[in-house]
């Protein structure tokens, strides 16, 4: 168990270093960063001074180590566009994105898994066929279009829900939340549905496919042959085996949610990290781009670790006690 976690941690660190390297190289490709920081009228001495202060006169590997050191301490530099420290901007933006992603993920799981199980168990039923066709429409609808349509119907035509922004948020320490005010809660409904719809259909189709796969196995047939109730076979034996791959994919999909939040945040002008990143790309704001990258990679690594641990908890085959294997 411990060895497993250590191995995973080492892998995660390698991935993080690789991402940090990519983020760092962004700076290298953009020409002289000094030009971005001081005006073209600055004197050669000022430039040299700044260069030395930032360590830009040092060789490449030293600069990289310096960069990694800064990142570990949570220092990401200063945004070219906003002139603020990137870490301050990120702290300000992080809660908006995480709350949106969390609500969307819960929504996708709460609807997707039961629908997947249902359509897997009643594969020839009319409702299942309808759901399956609808799910295909679901994965054919781009996220931004869902957002636009929801805005058109619920904000423009019906006027029920706000079409942009977070509404009224309440600060709890450095965190800001949507859930303590009615206005904030109303504001998150449309973005969360927009973000979750694609994942919902994906999870449903995945759970259905896995369920069908598992229901064909010998151990399910044997469980039926032992006269176990349908409930025990379907929800005890089949569902648990279905969940093993579903956990992995769901983990990956949370990563996808963070990425797709970029789109949702753009459509709804949601003040999260995704919107920040997109604006950074358009303005070639390298410090923001690279720190978004590092932060998102960090979130992904954490999610993957959690997924691995969950896997471990669900599947006894991974908890192999080598001594007991093959004992006759």
């Amino acid at each position, binding site marked *: 168990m411990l060895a497993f976690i250590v191995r995973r941690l080492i892998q995660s660190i390698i991935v993080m270093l690789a991402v940090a390297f990519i983020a760092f190289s962004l700076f290298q490709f953009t020409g002289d960063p000094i030009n971005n920081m001081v005006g073209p009228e600055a004197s050669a001495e000022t430039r040299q001074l700044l260069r030395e202060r930032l360590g830009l006169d040092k060789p490449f590997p030293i600069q990289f180590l310096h960069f990694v050191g800064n990142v570990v301490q949570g220092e990401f530099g200063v945004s070219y566009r906003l002139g603020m420290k990137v870490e301050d901007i990120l702290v300000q933006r992080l809660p908006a994105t995480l709350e949106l992603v969390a609500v969307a993920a819960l929504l996708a799981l709460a609807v997707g898994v039961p629908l997947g199980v249902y359509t897997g168990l009643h594969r020839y039923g009319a409702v299942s066929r309808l759901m399956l066709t609808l799910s295909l429409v679901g994965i054919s609808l781009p996220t931004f279009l869902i957002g636009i349509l929801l805005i058109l119907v619920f904000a423009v035509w019906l006027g029920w829900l706000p079409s942009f922004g977070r509404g009224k948020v309440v600060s709890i320490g450095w965190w800001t939340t949507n859930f303590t005010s009615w206005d904030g809660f109303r504001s998150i409904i449309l973005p969360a549905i927009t973000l979750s719809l694609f994942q919902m259909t994906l999870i449903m189709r995945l759970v259905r496919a896995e369920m069908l796969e598992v229901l064909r*196995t010998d*151990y399910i*047939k044997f469980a039926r*042959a*032992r006269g176990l109730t349908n409930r025990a076979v379907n929800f005890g034996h089949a569902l648990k085996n279905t969940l093993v791959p579903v956990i992995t994919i769901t983990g990956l999909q949370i990563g996808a949610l963070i990425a797709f939040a970029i789109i949702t945040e753009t459509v709804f002008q949601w003040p999260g990290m995704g919107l920040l990143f997109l604006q950074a790309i358009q303005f070639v704001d390298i410090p923001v781009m690279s720190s978004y990258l590092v932060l998102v990679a960090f979130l992904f690594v954490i999610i993957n670790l959690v997924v691995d641990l969950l896997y471990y908890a669900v599947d*006894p*085959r991974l908890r192999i006690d080598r001594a007991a294997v*093959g004992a006759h």
Partner: protein
Amino acid sequence: MRANRPLLEVDRLRVEFPTRRGTLVAVDEISFHIDPGEVLGVVGESGAGKSLTGSAIIGLLEPPGRIAGGRILFDGSRIDDLPYEQMRRIRGKQIGAVFQDPLTSLNPLYSVGRQLIETITTHLDLSEGQARKRAIELLAEVGIPAPERRIDQYPHQFSGGMRQRVVIALALCANPRLIIADEPTTALDVSIQAQIIALLKKLCREHGTAVMLVTHDMGVIAETADRVAVMYAGRIAEIGPARQVIKQPLHPYTVGLMGSIPMVGTDADRLVQIEGAMPRLTEIPPGCAFNPRCPKVFERCRHDRPDLIRVGPASTACWLYDGQAGHD
């Protein structure tokens, strides 16, 4: 002849698979019975319909396969047309099953004990604790050492032979009156096959359980079965007492089958081989299904399909014996 009512009676059972190129008849109007405590061996090449017959009896034919005709009676009452829930109560409780591959018959995510206890409490009115006690006894009975410790282990921690013992324990755990064992040793090492067969034989004798032993291994039949049914292309070619069928086979197919088994102590110079292969279900010839391969074929075999004809203690579906005795 028969003093008691048979435990299982299969009467003109027909199993069909509808496909887009017409309906395949996989089991073609076969009839046989099994008496209480008796071991009936069912032999034949793969595709002869042996396993499907077993699946039909326990009501677990996989769609699109279906029972298209005939009756199955268990202890005098029909079971082929029971609703799912009533049939479920019979499975495991009255009719147990052992499948071919012990590696895939057990749910990998649940401990052996959980699977046993679950089956016991489904059919018997026992508490969790009592069921666990019975599960340990059963494991000991099927020859698993240190059952108190091994009951909490997972299937992957058992070897193939040990897993098949667990499967047998699972099949026996509600004391069924009939066990359908579908190639229970085929997936095992040769050295372990004999042990498992001996165990099955011993347990069934002790519990008074009847067995329908599906296999393609004549050696297993010779050692275990009281009577044997030989199947060919979905039909019964010959059925009778095991010694009789092995020593004095009637049907030319059985003769060929016996001739192809190497026997220690007989001085046959070479093994007999049956020319050709069993026809595919789409290409079964009119008349006797064996006629294109039969060394003793004559005109009638190509047009009329033979019924089972009683010859001494056995019966065979072959025109060679027409007129020698009355129809069964």
